[in-house]
């Protein structure tokens, strides 16, 4: 016996006794072995009490040996890596593992919240709906916080998860879920046929029940067949076995979700490795060999620690050489439960009694009982005497009415088996009831999926192998592989006889859903109150909503509901099955999309140059844009921005505007095409000219704007706003491909091809003359306002030059191939040095556009019409275009619409803020006089005050009117004047000069 491991057998099991491991549970040190789970190690150390229940804080032990565990939940690891609600039954033991019980205070053994048990008569299902209503304000203040504190299970870490996750894709012909005999047979057949196979196994060791149940396959002991089969699968190049990987969901088109616990068996992931990986597996076919889950029988005291599922009991003994009890009683209603007796006897454990609910027990088992010297009692367990430290005595109601008592320190229970119908039902399938096994089995499955073996209700070893092999072979064939699969492995089928038994009447709480403390009487109460639908039952009692998703409780619960409501089980039906099959860490779904890598980042061609200049960057969609360029001594952003604006207005500045969407529009019908997507006309635009365009959605609202230039007869260069670049391309492709296929038009995004800079200010031409080849005529005549053409720059490279202005100044935009963008910025600084050139950011750009009354994002809100924006006259009446008809609807041309207007505070010292509402002067603000709002603001160096644009009812008719800017959020209220939105150079002389 290993040190302290009082309940460890001296030999046997699949643990590695040469690799002892130390671990701590609730602060106490224990030891176990490599190959243990936390649960098996705790059992080996004689620990029976591991948790407290949700509502009544009842002492709980370990019920199962798998991911269906409702009781043995712990907080695993510490600090930032603390994982609440971790199932001890699936947590692999590693050196230094630390775990703590949860939902108890101050300690697991002495939990003061177990006082809740005293109130149990009141805390029945749904009690909270009937009370806590008075006084009205007390819910949030008193009752709810108390309930919230009491509820919940483990504690989340509360700090950022330090581990990494990633996501990956896999593709295969045949995906197999589960590596028990059926799954292995399926993988073998499919692999031999030449198919690409992925076999997912939740456990860290493949084999499923072969790891604990024994048996003979092809004349070999199960363990030997298993290792031979794994060896053969390893030789097949396209068969991949993924252990520690749970298939949790099935999605459309043969896409499956799986979670791989890559490094959860280590204290922390090795450097550069992830904790877990989310797999999206695309499979032509899927064979579900996910097995079945043994179900409890509901009787009083069935939640006492060391009451355990019979299959779990033998798994601990056979696989882990750990003994949950020394003197075991079995309560079964079926043949399979006896397997636990066989294995326990084989391991030298004592059997106290077998309580068999069936009328008959097989002769073989009778003789086993007499050899083992234990009684076989026909009847049911009606109560358990015991507590925190486990079972002491078991009360038995014998068939015929007599009572008996059995002394034992552990009770194995088998109520039969429920096929794992989750995966097959996730497309809202409803499983069907099979009377002979008294269980639900899959009734159809999502396309391409088939269930085999125990997951399909075939519990015999021979049937599992045969079904798995046949399904694997067929799946490979369906996927186009016809290699020789050979013949299916052969094994005998064990007898399976079962007498359904769900609930044994008795005194004391009999649990259906252990974790949520749902009892048989809660189900009866739900029925009494009309919550008879299984979905109502689930919602009213919370049956099946715990972390085990009802894997051990749902069927028993609905069977009891069926009984009390006088319906059959199939009539009562099941709730909808929902993925994931096991709970999956949220971090895994995110993968590396967190922190700074949450989304991609787009950098402009001059980004690194701007960073060298000390630019402050702002996020604009995915872009990082230079917002302003602070200089030493400037006290705030406003000072920097004001300097940049003044420098442009007084001299020259430049700004990287490469983020604009840019689209090459080619083809003989390019002009005609643009006429249909813009409200104004482009077919008559001369080559070498640019024009501002506005496009609508089909519903008549403005979609986007931008400047489009005609570079050749059949070539336009279209720009979009930064925000809509991708969407406009999509829209134009729709128009081109779907609506107007008769036109010869080709579209290409060239957004990333060109680094584009706006150069603005009265000295723009001086600067350009330095950098543009002297042969190019940049005079007002040679390159007039709205001119556009290719030019050559000094040093030989070609650029596109557009005489357009967003700032209202004499301005050009210049495009160079993107890899020259960095050089362009540096060269503009060089060329502009004599003129005091100033790089400016998006803030200064925004100031100048507001001063100029240009619309931008806040005005292009998707609810404004061209007329609202003051651009109604651009709408051609001579042609059809997208949005034309709907733009004419009565509410869109109503005279009282909110339209763009300029706004300036009457008190010139006052700051104007976006989002303030416009109320007629002298009126009390209310829904009836809320006439609009401020959309964009800036401090205008040229006006020497804050100015803005707004959308205001009948605004254009009201210029000069003093109204009220109402901003209760910021406690501000002040007079503003509605004015012409063009604050700067309204005649436009500067930009044309």
């Amino acid at each position, binding site marked *: 016996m290993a040190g302290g491991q009082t309940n460890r057998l001296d030999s046997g099991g699949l643990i590695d006794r040469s690799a002892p491991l130390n671990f701590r549970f609730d602060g106490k040190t224990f030891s176990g072995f490599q190959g243990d789970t936390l649960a098996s190690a705790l059992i080996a150390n004689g620990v029976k009490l591991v948790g407290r229940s949700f509502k009544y804080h009842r002492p709980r032990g370990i019920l199962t040996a798998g991911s269906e565990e409702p009781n043995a939940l712990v907080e695993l690891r510490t600090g930032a890596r603390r994982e609440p609600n971790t199932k001890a039954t699936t947590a692999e033991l590693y050196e230094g593992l630390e775990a703590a019980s949860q939902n108890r205070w101050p300690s697991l053994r002495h939990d003061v919240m177990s006082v809740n048990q005293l109130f149990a008569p009141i805390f029945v299902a749904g009690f909270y709906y009937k009370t806590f209503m008075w006084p009205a304000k007390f819910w949030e203040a008193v009752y709810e916080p108390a309930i919230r504190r009491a509820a919940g299970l483990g504690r989340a870490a509360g700090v950022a998860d330090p581990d990494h996750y990633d996501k990956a894709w896999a593709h295969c012909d045949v995906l197999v879920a589960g590596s028990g005999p059926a799954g292995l047979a399926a993988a073998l057949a499919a692999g031999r046929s030449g198919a690409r196979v992925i076999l997912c196994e939740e456990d860290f060791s493949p084999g499923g029940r072969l790891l604990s149940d024994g048996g003979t396959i092809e004349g070999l002991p199960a363990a030997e067949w298993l290792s031979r089969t794994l060896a053969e699968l390893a030789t097949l190049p396209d068969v991949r076995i993924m252990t520690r990987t749970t298939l949790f969901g099935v*999605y*459309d*088109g*043969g*896409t499956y979700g799986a979670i791989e616990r890559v490094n959860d068996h280590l204290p922390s992931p090795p450097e550069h490795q992830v904790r877990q990986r989310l797999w*999206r597996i*695309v499979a032509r076919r899927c064979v579900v060999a996910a097995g079945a889950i043994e179900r409890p029988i509901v009787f009083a005291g069935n939640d006492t620690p060391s009451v355990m599922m019979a299959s779990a009991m033998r798994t601990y003994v056979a696989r882990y050489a750990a003994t949950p009890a020394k003197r075991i009683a079995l309560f079964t209603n079926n043949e399979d439960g006896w397997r636990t007796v066989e294995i326990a006897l084989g391991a030298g454990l004592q059997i106290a009694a077998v309580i068999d609910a069936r009328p008959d027990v097989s002769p073989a088992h009778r003789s086993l009982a007499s050899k083992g010297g234990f009684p076989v009692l026909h009847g049911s367990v009606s109560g358990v005497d015991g507590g925190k430290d486990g079972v002491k005595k078991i009360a038995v109601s014998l068939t015929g009415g007599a009572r008996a008592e059995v002394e034992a320190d552990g009770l194995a229970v088998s109520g039969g088996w429920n096929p794992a119908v989750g995966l097959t039902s996730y*497309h809202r399938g409803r499983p069907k009831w099979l009377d002979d096994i008294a269980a639900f089995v899959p009734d159809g499955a999502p*396309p391409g999926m088939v269930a085999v073996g125990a997951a399909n209700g075939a519990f015999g070893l021979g049937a599992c192998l045969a079904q798995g092999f046949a399904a694997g072979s067929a799946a490979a064939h369906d996927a186009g592989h016809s290699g020789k699969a050979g013949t299916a492995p052969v094994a005998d089928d064990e007898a399976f006889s079962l007498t359904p038994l769900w609930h044994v009447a008795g005194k004391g709480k009999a649990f259906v859903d252990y974790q949520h403390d749902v009892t048989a009487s809660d189900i009866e109460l739900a029925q009494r109150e009309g919550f008879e639908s299984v979905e109502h039952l689930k919602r009213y009692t919370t049956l099946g909503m715990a972390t085990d998703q009802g894997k051990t409780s749902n069927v028993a619960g609905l069977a009891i509901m069926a009984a009390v409501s006088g319906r059959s089980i199939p009539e009562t039906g099941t709730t909808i099955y929902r993925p994931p099959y096991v709970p999956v860490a949220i971090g895994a779904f995110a993968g590396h999309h967190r922190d700074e890598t949450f989304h991609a980042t787009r950098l402009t061609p001059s980004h690194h140059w701007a960073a060298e200049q000390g630019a402050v960057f702002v996020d604009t969609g995915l872009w990082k844009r230079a917002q302003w360029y602070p200089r030493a001594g400037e006290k705030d952003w406003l000072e920097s921005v004001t300097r940049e604006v003044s420098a442009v207005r007084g001299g020259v500045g430049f700004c990287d505007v490469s983020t604009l969407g840019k689209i090459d529009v080619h083809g003989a019908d390019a002009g005609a095409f643009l006429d249909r997507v813009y409200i104004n006309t482009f077919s008559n635009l001369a080559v070498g000219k640019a024009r501002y365009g506005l496009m609508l959605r*089909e*519903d008549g609202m403005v979609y986007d704007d931008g400047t489009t230039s005609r570079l050749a007869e059949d070539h336009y260069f279209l720009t979009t706003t930064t925000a809509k670049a*991708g969407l406009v391309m*999509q829209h134009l*492709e*729709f128009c081109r*491909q*779907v*609506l*107007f*296929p*008769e036109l010869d038009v080709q579209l290409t995004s060239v957004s990333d091809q060109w680094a584009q800079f706006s150069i603005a200010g009265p000295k723009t031409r001086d600067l350009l003359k330095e950098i543009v080849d002297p042969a190019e005529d940049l005079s007002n005549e040679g390159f007039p306002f709205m001119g556009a053409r290719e030019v050559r720059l000094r040093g030989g490279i070609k650029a596109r030059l557009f005489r357009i202005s967003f700032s209202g100044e004499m301005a050009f935009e210049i495009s160079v191939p993107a890899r020259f963008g960095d050089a362009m910025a540096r060269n503009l600084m060089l060329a502009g040095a004599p003129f005091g050139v100033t790089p400016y950011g998006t803030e200064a750009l925004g100031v100048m556009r507001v001063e100029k009354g240009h619309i931008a994002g806040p005005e292009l809100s998707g609810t404004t019409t061209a007329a609202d924006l003051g651009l109604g006259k651009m709408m051609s009446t001579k*042609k*059809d275009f997208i949005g034309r*008809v*709907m733009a*004419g*609807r009565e509410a869109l041309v109503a005279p009282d619409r909110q339209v763009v207007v300029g706004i300036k505070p009457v008190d010139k010292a006052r700051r104007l803020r976006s989002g303030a509402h416009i109320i007629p002067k002298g009126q009390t603000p209310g829904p009836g006089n809320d006439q609009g709002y401020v959309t964009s603001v800036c401090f205008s160096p040229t006006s020497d005050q804050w100015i803005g644009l707004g959308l205001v009812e009948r605004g254009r008719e009201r210029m000069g009117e003093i109204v009220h800017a109402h901003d209760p959020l910021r406690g501000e209220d002040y007079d503003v004047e509605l004015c012409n939105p063009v604050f700067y150079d309204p005649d436009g002389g500067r930009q044309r000069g």
Partner: protein
Amino acid sequence: MRIVCPFCGERELGEFTYLGDAKPVRPAAGASEDEVFDYVYLRDNVAGETSEYWYHGGGCRTWLKIARNTLTHEISSVEPAAGAGAAKVGA
């Protein structure tokens, strides 16, 4: 969901953008407000087989017309949408 693009082959849902029902046809120039209203706003919104526009923007940038069942998400055909929404001459 996986969509078999007629040009690219089978691809992941994330490469595609959904637009909507491919049944409405854009009325020809000169159509009445009522006709255009119907085109822009009213939908059969079928529970079952429908024909829809999807854009393979994350791939070959083709607009596709896809027959899909809105109850099961099963796709029965995918074809280029070229011209599918165009007003027919004289319509």
